[in-house]
């Protein structure tokens, strides 16, 4: 295994968190969170396919305050992962590697994520209340 004699990189806690690092870590965290969301989505499909009561039971949990908070966080995680994923695709294609560009694209990922999260929930509230 590892040769402990070699110089070790400073522990994560010593760094000041640059935006790029924070988004990179968030990409993984949101990925894991979205896995749970995907499983819940399948549970809803199974509920609709099997029993209206089971669907109403899940719906009860998702429409109370805690459930809604989770749904909003999932929406945010979805768009953050999506737009940062697109950022990764640009990097894969060889674009946007300059330090100033990565910071700018990182800021844009967060701005667009907020806009689309608000847009989705705006649409949800508009469509529920009409």
């Amino acid at each position, binding site marked *: 295994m590892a040769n402990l004699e070699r110089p070790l990189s400073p522990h994560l806690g010593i760094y000041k968190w640059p935006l790029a690092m924070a988004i990179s870590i968030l990409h*993984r965290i949101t*990925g*894991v969170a*979205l*896995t749970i969301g*995907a*499983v819940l*989505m*399948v549970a*809803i*499909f*199974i509920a*609709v*396919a*099997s029993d*209206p009561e089971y*669907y*109403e039971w899940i*719906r009860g949990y998702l*429409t109370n305050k805690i459930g809604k908070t989770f749904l909003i966080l999932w*929406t945010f995680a*979805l*768009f953050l992962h*999506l737009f940062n*994923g*697109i950022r*990764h*695709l640009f990097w*894969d294609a060889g674009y946007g590697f300059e330090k100033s560009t990565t910071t700018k694209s990182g800021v844009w990922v967060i701005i667009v994520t907020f806009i*689309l999260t608000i*847009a*989705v*929930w705006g*649409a*949800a509230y508009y*469509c*529920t209340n*009409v």
Partner: protein
Amino acid sequence: MSLRTPLSEAKGLGSAKEGAGHWWLQRLTAIALIPLVIWLAFAVAMLGDASYETVLAWLETPYVAVLLILLVAATFYHTQLGLQVIVEDYVHGWLKIVTLILINFLCIVFAVAGIVALLKIFL
């Protein structure tokens, strides 16, 4: 699809395992998920009261069934590939193997369960 250069293949260079296959499929499923996920978010948001009848009627629509089946397949394929990378980074030894097998099986189970449920509703 192979991303290997002809020269590297002729020289027998490169990965001894799947090499670029994992990387490529992660991107392929990601690209497929971009339109699917944006559509899903807004479509679900605009379902209104989300009552059983509303959701059932929506899921019975042919194009919705097609898009959701594609979405479930791409999602769990992408999930399996993504979680695998995370596990390979942080979990080691026999626990790594067990976790990877579990992730593989569970992703297939959830994908099949989701698709069967969607087909049952639609058909």
